């Protein structure tokens, strides 16, 4: 598995856009122009991977939504990339009847069922368009890749498979079946695109186990059917000799509820927590105009893309925030130096133009000018990225300062590592200008979750009063109480490992004059490495360590002929590759933790996936919905 999942999915998309033949590398091929039509699912899948410019390079002149008004373009082939739902099929049949395009290449994101295929066939017959439907493909791309090693299931109707939907008390069996089927379908597509059959391990007794059982069954059925299997030849092709199969760990959100509520300090996770961050796109509200009383400020929304091509982002995604601020400053200085050089060149050119007879000088200067001109796009791009990161980091810093997030972070780290607390919880909660009510609720919930014994009734009442004074809603607390009671029956609550947080003094080191990141009063906290529960479980399973937590996990191997119920792993070697999937939702903090873990261990590759990606605010909302029932 040398290529990351992002590259594989991008390659699959590009192949699809090239009419499902492998794309040719040379530029001597004749350009063919086509139109791309997608639905919202397809849009979410394509947007993080291919920009409009790349689509243009592949010959796509127009990209349109399926359910919009489309004009006929009679001599162009059209590529459809949609989910095989009823409405989409109806719309496609309508298109066929209206004869909008010359030829149709239908690509379905996940497998289309037989009856829907017959629907399309009858519509095509009715419209005399059978020859126009040139190809029908099942693409098996029903997942969204956000990073090289991170994927999410779906974005459009994520309420259906959210934590709330899975854990609500009045859930019906049929609903659960539907949710499980959706998750298993996407995971199956993921493994088909990855091209490997994993060994599955999951804990007992929760949603993760159901997903594992179904996924095992589906993989097994597909492997059994040798003629139609999607996995033959995949692992042997292109010189990828991975004799080892990857490990697929299914975790359930319920084993660690503190991490989604945790306040964070790394760049990417902060952006996700504090700003509006969706599918690798940040949306900032910038207000123009002064603060005059009567007129409301005009707020414009600016959105920025944080892509793989952005070198600064790739380097600093996981670094603590003060480091990011410093690095932005460094980049800015470097850019200014380069800009000055180009300006100097301009003045030199002006002088040399008067010198006659120095033809060699002229050609040398042309070379310089050529190099300067060709480096201009790079410089402009750099400037744009620096501007982007400056804006984003400033917005994050504003939030940190106004909500005193560093205080919360430090306190929560101490709570989670059970080290001594210097301030009492009550002080922070009743502090009026430290954070929004949501922040206080998060802090309290983490305290409640990580406490060894629940606080006494008197203390609890005190806390509740302080919280309601601060304006918090107490319904998540009900749910957490239930959850805690439930997990106490099952196992001991997960410990969070040792971590230390060293504050580096009240004033940060970033105090250059002219620096935009004046972080007075914000503590410069340094993170020490610690392992979240998910990382620890992964560590145990990958290295086959025996640990009371993970010994009880079930073991599935779809390639074995007969499914065994035992949980004794047949494979005794430690795994080199692993995929962690959290059923019920995940977030960037866990992802960052896994990335750090991978960096510490040489030669191991870990990928992270979750059924939905939520920020702490969204999670609190789901918890309060659950607590109100």
């Amino acid at each position, binding site marked *: 598995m040398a290529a990351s999942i992002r590259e594989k999915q991008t390659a699959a998309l590009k192949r699809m856009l090239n009419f499902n033949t492998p794309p040719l590398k040379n530029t001597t091929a004749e350009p063919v122009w086509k139109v791309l039509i997608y639905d919202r699912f397809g849009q979410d899948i394509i947007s993080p991977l291919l920009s409009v410019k790349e689509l*243009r390079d592949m010959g796509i002149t127009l990209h349109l939504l399926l359910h919009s008004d489309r004009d006929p373009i009679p001599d162009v082939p059209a590529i459809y990339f949609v989910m095989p739902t009823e409405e989409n099929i109806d719309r496609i049949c309508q298109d066929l009847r209206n004869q909008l395009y010359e030829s149709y290449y239908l690509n379905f994101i996940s497998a289309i069922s037989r009856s829907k295929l017959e629907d399309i066939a009858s519509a095509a017959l009715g419209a005399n368009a059978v020859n126009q439907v040139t190809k029908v493909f099942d693409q098996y791309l029903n997942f969204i890749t956000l990073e090289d090693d991170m994927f999410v299931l779906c974005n459009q109707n994520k309420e259906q498979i959210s934590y709330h939907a899975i854990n609500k008390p009045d859930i019906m069996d049929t609903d659960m079946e539907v949710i499980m089927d959706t998750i298993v379908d996407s995971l199956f597509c993921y493994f088909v695109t990855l091209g490997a059959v994993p060994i599955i391990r999951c804990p007992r007794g929760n949603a993760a186990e159901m997903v594992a059982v179904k996924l095992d069954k589906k993989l097994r059925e597909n492997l059994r059917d040798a003629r139609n299997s999607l996995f033959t030849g995949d692992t042997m092709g292109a010189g990828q000799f991975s004799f080892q199969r990857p490990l697929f760990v299914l975790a359930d959100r319920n084993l660690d509820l503190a991490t989604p509520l945790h306040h964070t300090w790394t760049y990417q996770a902060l952006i996700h927590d504090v700003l509006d961050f969706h599918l690798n796109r940040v949306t900032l509200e910038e207000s123009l105009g002064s603060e005059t009383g009567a007129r409301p400020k005009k707020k414009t929304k600016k959105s920025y893309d944080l892509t793989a091509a952005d070198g600064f982002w790739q380097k600093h995604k996981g670094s603590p925030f003060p480091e990011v601020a410093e690095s932005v400053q460094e980049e800015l200085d470097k850019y200014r130096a380069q800009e000055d050089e180009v300006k100097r060149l301009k003045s030199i050119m002006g002088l040399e133009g008067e010198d006659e007879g120095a033809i060699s000088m002229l050609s040398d200067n042309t070379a310089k000018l050529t190099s300067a001109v060709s480096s201009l796009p790079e410089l402009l791009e750099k400037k744009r990225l620096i501007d982007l990161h400056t804006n984003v980091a400033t917005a994050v810093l504003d939030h940190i300062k106004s909500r005193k997030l560093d205080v919360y972070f430090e306190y929560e780290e101490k709570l989670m590592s059970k080290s001594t607390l210097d301030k009492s919880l009550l002080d922070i909660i009743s502090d009026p200008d430290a954070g929004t009510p949501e922040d206080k609720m998060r802090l309290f919930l983490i305290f409640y979750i990580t406490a060894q014994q629940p606080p006494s009734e008197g203390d609890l009442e005190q806390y509740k009063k302080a919280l309601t004074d601060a304006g918090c809603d107490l319904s998540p607390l009900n749910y957490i109480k239930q959850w805690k009671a439930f997990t106490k029956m099952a196992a001991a609550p997960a410990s969070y490992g040792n971590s230390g947080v060293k504050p580096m003094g009240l004033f940060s080191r970033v105090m250059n004059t002219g620096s935009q990141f004046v972080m007075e009063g914000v503590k410069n906290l340094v993170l020490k490495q610690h392992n979240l529960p998910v990382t620890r479980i992964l560590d145990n399973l990958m290295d086959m360590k025996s640990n009371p937590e993970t010994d009880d996990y079930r073991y599935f191997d779809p390639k074995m002929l007969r499914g065994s119920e035992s949980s004794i792993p047949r494979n005794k070697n430690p795994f080199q590759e692993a995929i962690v999937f959290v059923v019920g939702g995940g977030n960037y903090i866990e992802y960052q933790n896994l990335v750090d873990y991978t960096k510490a261990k040489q030669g191991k590759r870990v990928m992270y996936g979750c059924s939905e990606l939520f920020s702490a605010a969204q999670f609190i909302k789901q918890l309060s919905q659950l607590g109100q029932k």
Partner: protein
Amino acid sequence: MNTRRRHGPRGSQEGVYTGPSQTQSQLVPPLEAPLAVSLVPPVDTSTMSCRDRTSEFQSVCKSLQGRQNGEQAIKSVPSVVKQRSDFTLMAKRIGRDLSNTFAKLEKLTILAKRKSLFDDKAVEIDELTYIVKQDINSLNKQIAELQHLVRSRNSHTSRHLHTHSNTIVVSLQSKLASMSSDFKSVLEVRTENLKQQRSRQEQFSQSPASAPSFHSGLSNSVLMQDDSNKADVSIDMDLRSSHQMQLINEKDSFIEDRANTMQNIESTIVELGSIFQQLAHMVKEQEETVQRIDANVEDTQLNVDLAHTEILKYFQSVSNNRWLLIKIFLILIIFFFVFVVFMA
């Protein structure tokens, strides 16, 4: 035949299609073989992570057709006659010419990179250069014609067709620009190689050029020694002619140097021209630097929200107004009734 199961159990309908069912197994193989030959291209599908359902689709169509007694089958052929607009034809032609010129440019690149001293195919390179230059010019003109055609058709076409045509023109232009910048770099490489060759030739041919004069000098001296008495005049003439030869050589080399510098100047001017072209192209390309598919959708949503608020405000004002109007009307009607009662 598979009966259609619209409301059947979901498990059997969704998910992976694991092979044709038993009833169809006899139908599928004889159908698939001729279909496979004619329709499915010989592509190695073993490394692809997708599944081709085209043959299945075709078989379903055939079976449905059979059910409808083949009435429709005859009609299907003539309606599929491809009506291509002249825009598409022209664009296709330009695309083909572009790809041909690219191939020629690649050949030229290979030739120009050769650094051997003696096997220099100067004639071929010059010919190819001339041909490529002509091609680029003609492509430029063709693309300009295409753009003119698109603009003249502006009013008649729908907005999607319009965007489509514009995008095609822009992509053709950008391909041409990249090709001309490649051409320029090939020319640069060629001039570099020429310069190197000249300098090496000069190094090698300096010594042979001086050797004959040496030899002639020696022979002259021998002659002089032999025929010093009789052939003074002829020897003098010989000496002078050798001097003249040297002079002529020097003049030649001087002229050659001049020619070199002229070539340099010309190439430099060409470079500058193309640099300006590049600049203009960059300005044009700013239009679509980094966009995303969903940018438009979000923009329109924002606009729709703003419009919605504006409309609400207007509605508020209008409805407020209406309340007043209604009140006034009521009062008027009451007065009217009072009057009528009093009068009557």
